């Protein structure tokens, strides 16, 4: 018996997020949802179906979809579809399938796959045997940018706080993409930029969130500025965790205090860098800083001194402010997640 990675109950709420497959991964000018055998297809969700004992006399296992918003394929590249006729298919043995969301209708917000036992003798579903997976299409995309030399990894170690946050958002049901901040060039272009545009124009996404730590904060500014200036995109949520400008790459040590243009809401967390090499909190003096042009509806906190009398972390350094665990406590993470969830739908 193969243990499940996650208890089944944990995937019930809110269900399984899935991308609308309106993009063109094989670059043939045809939306992937309209074709088969899509090389490079990366928007399907793998499911594993365990059916035991199977075969079993008098019993069959069937998989039914509740509507045509989804389809199931045998392969990740959509070679063999399961629902060629009707909405139910027999599962002869434990197997793997790939689920695709194949409609762009924004009014279609859910679909279920139901795995159930079929009593062949009585020609009916066995009561109480149904296991259901609910799918919902993503309406947002999240970009997480690490600091200098922080390469995305899953699961991330605790010192890669930005990616720890990303994991939490991912488990919370969001479509999160982690990147090295070097993926964004000095004018904001790069793979993350393209991902956002693709999500907006081809996958029915209506909300964008971008956040970064250190140079990832600087890259956040550059990318969001490009999205706004060139494409008129107003990103819904942005955040810097001790943001540092990134136009000059590793040589750029200036605090990122520019508000990302067009951002509907910006959260800024920073501490005070220490330049004295003899000080135990020495961090090359690296730090973010108060945002110039912060709007009244934005949020900002100096974690070392605020709130007065009970600052979040009086001994924060540039290297610990983003961490989720001691020595830097978690208020930055918890606060960012709270503000993020309040503004971004799945």
């Amino acid at each position, binding site marked *: 018996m193969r243990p499940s990675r996650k208890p089944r109950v944990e995937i019930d709420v809110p269900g399984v997020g899935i991308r609308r497959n309106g993009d063109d991964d094989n670059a043939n000018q045809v939306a992937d949802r309209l074709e088969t055998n899509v090389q490079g297809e990366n928007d399907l969700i793998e499911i594993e179906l365990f059916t035991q004992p199977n075969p079993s006399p008098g019993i069959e296992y069937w998989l039914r979809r509740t509507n045509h918003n989804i389809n199931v394929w045998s392969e990740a590249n959509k070679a063999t579809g399961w629902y060629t006729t009707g909405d139910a298919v027999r599962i002869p043995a434990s197997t793997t399938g790939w689920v695709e969301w194949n409609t762009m209708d924004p009014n279609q917000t859910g679909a279920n796959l139901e795995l159930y036992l079929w009593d062949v003798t009585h020609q009916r579903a066995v009561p109480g045997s149904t296991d259901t997976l609910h799918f919902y299409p993503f309406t947002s995309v999240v970009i997480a940018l690490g600091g200098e030399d922080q390469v995305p990894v899953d699961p991330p170690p605790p010192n890669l706080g930005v990616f720890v946050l990303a994991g939490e958002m991912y*488990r919370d049901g969001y479509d999160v993409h982690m990147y090295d901040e070097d993926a964004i060039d000095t004018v904001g272009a790069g793979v993350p930029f393209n991902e956002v545009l693709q999500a907006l124009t081809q996958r029915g996404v209506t909300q964008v969130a971008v956040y970064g730590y250190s140079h990832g904060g600087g890259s956040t500014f550059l990318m969001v500025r490009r999205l706004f200036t060139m494409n008129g995109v107003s990103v819904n949520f942005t955040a810097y965790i001790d943001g540092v400008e990134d136009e000059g790459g590793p040589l750029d040590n200036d605090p990122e205090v520019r508000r990302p243009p067009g951002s509907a809401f910006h959260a800024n967390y920073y501490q005070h860098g220490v330049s004295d090499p003899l000080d135990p909190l020495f961090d090359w003096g690296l730090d973010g800083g108060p945002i110039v042009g912060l709007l009244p509806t934005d949020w900002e906190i100096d974690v070392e001194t605020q709130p007065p009398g009970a600052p979040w972390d009086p001994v924060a350094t540039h290297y610990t402010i983003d961490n989720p665990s001691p020595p830097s406590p978690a208020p930055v993470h918890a606060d960012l997640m709270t503000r993020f969830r309040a503004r971004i739908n799945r």
Partner: protein
Amino acid sequence: MNRQVATTRPSWRVTAHPRCRRTLAILAVSVTCSVVVPHLPAQETALKPDPAIQLQVRRLLNLQSGDNPFKELDALEKLAGRRHERLVPQLLYFSVYGTDAKGQHDVKEAMAFGWIVHQLHISPTSMANALVPYLEIEDPKLREAVREAFSEIGYSHFQSLVEGAVAQGAPPPKGLVRYMYQRNPGEALLTLAGTSLLPRNREGWKEKWKSLLWAEHVVSDVLWKHEHGFLDKRKVEPDAKAQLERLSKDDAWWVRLYVAEILRQHPAFRTPEMVERLKKDPHELVREAITRPEPKKPVGTFPPSKPAKVGPEKK
């Protein structure tokens, strides 16, 4: 007849998107501050020295062996405030008028500004934000020092200041706008076009953005040709003139200001009709720019070259 019915429920596991129910309560974090009151810098006419800050700067420049410069820098920053709006102008003042214990002002005092800004990692944006109010200060030495400091700052930093004002329903600071357009009209035009002054949620914004990009490019191309001798500075290509003519009738004052500044700085582009139209412009900055004198040519530039007259060789 025994009918064996499988009692094991079918199960599955989602492997590409493992899911986790939200089981952790969000930490209740109470904060009593951090909402920042919007701040729009006003133009200042004078910069007065703050004795405590000036003293601390002088102390920094006169450390003895065993003193810790980082502690003194830290003390300076705590004294003046983390937002640097007080500190930067005071540093600038010191770099112009600061003296040592003997009352002398030398290179050491003059360079203090740059060194301390660098040591404290004061960002160009913060520096610009702090100095904008002093761009048109009455004291000519301080005014020159402010403009020198600004000359190192890129336009993306000014964009934040403009956007900050516009987002709060206020016009961009006049002194900053004047400076931006006088220094580089084309970059100023595109910087302002990159803010909410050109709202991205209005129909036709992209066409307008592209038309401004193109116009600036066409005009810049002519200016480049002038600079490098590919085109007589007294001549202008028709397309560039047509672009400026079109922009001079734009409904956005910051577009017309670009035209006014180009005409002022490069007389070859002028037409009497455009000049007269802009002199009657409804916006103060546009009228001001078109009537301001042409900038003086820097020492060392020469008029368009003419062949030197070579007299007959003396026999």
